[in-house]
């Protein structure tokens, strides 16, 4: 079995679990517990350890998706997951500026530990108070869009939209192939 491992990360409320659910063809193995902290107001369940989803697209080929918890007290999980990942996608809720700084932290964490290709997925772009993509990128520290990773809009509930985001990741991997590794 040939497996590609993709990490889905991002701050609380970005839609990581939803994203994995909408592209995964198996019943998602999740480890949700009833949230007791401040995230309880945001959603009934929050990811404690990880979400796992699978997309089998050939007799011996599969994509595994690992969703990280959003809170920082689970950062040991981020570490375990990113070390084995072939690529990652960071989901950012464009309507929640309070989370931009957290997204920036998560991203610098990932960048410190891994040089795998990555894509930024902006979620909740349809909300009225969502920031424009370019402005979110600046808030994430990407001051020059030509040097930023690919940024895509994602509706995590929509399988087609989530699939598009996955394709952006795969394209990044393909390009990384073309360049010789150092």
């Amino acid at each position, binding site marked *: 079995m*040939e*497996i*590609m*491992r993709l990490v889905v990360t991002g701050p609380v409320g970005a839609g990581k679990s939803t994203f994995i659910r909408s*592209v995964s063809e198996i019943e998602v*193995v999740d*480890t949700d517990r009833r949230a007791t902290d401040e995230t309880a107001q945001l959603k009934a369940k929050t990811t404690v*350890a*990880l979400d*796992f989803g699978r*997309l089998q*697209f*050939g007799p011996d*080929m599969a*994509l*595994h998706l*690992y969703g990280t918890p959003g809170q*920082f*007290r689970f*950062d*040991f*999980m*981020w*570490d*375990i*997951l990113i*070390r*084995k990942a*072939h690529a990652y996608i960071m989901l950012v809720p464009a309507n*929640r*500026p*309070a989370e*931009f*700084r957290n997204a*920036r*932290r*998560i991203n*610098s*964490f990932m960048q*410190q530990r891994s040089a795998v290709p990555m894509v930024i997925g902006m979620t909740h772009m349809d909300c009225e*108070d969502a*920031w*424009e993509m370019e*402005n979110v990128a*600046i*808030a994430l*520290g990407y*001051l*020059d869009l030509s040097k930023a990773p690919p940024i895509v809009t994602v509706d995590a509930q929509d*399988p*087609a939209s989530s*699939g*598009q985001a*996955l*394709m952006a990741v*795969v*394209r990044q*991997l*393909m390009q990384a*192939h073309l360049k010789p590794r150092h």
Partner: protein
Amino acid sequence: MVISGYLSDFSLPEILQFLDEGSKSGLLAVQPSGLGARAGVASSTALSRHYFIWFNEGRIIAAADQQDYRGLVRMIAQRKWMDESKLRQLISQCPSGSAFGSFLKSQNLLSADQLRLLFSTQVIRQICALFELVNGSYQFVGTVQPPFLEMTGLSAPAKEVILPGLRALDNWSTLAEKLPSSSSSLIQNLQSQPELRLNAQEAQVQGLTDGRMPLQQIAKQMALPLETVQKIAFRLIVTGFAEEVPLATEAEARADTPAELESAGTTGIRQGFLERLMGYLNQI
């Protein structure tokens, strides 16, 4: 472009950093709200007041607490540098599109030193005081005319205002949540190293931004309270010197890791695999 929200979500230093790094031009209006607003910034009679800060390409060009474009004139008259009737006359002579302050200098009516003093009172002091706001809302509108009559002609990158503002800040309650975690470390921000002069402590912390040493340890090494180091780190982050990097607490709960993850080694992925996956995704 319009951006609006609450200071409790996106704090004023973060907004200024965003406008600076995004080289934005426009008008930022800040409205204090709630009882938390402190005297000096907004006395209880002035709670409904707005504060206005104008930007050009990420640089602050003027600030005011009224939108009548007479703030600069009032400041000059208050200092008795010129009387109001003279100033009114000069306003009508100021060519359109030039800053009133520059015009006064070109007429030898104000010196460069006087203009610098006006700028620092108008912009730096006023904005630094706004950092004390506990609650409030903000709105940034990207398409406005520069307020020529409020402009001294001087400008400063927003980051140059953030740094002294935060150094002088006593009440950090709004920013408490934004402070980097004690277990995080800092790395140098490779995209932007601003041309700002750091004070001794800031420079010392900046010298320790190696991506490995947690703030806790930096505090110990510098014999400073942790909170002080967190505040210094926050200053370095919002002025673009450093980025926060969380350091993973070493795995306590490896038991949660699924078997697949442990068994699979990280080998490269074949191009053929990617092509198949691409084809599959295309059909979703």
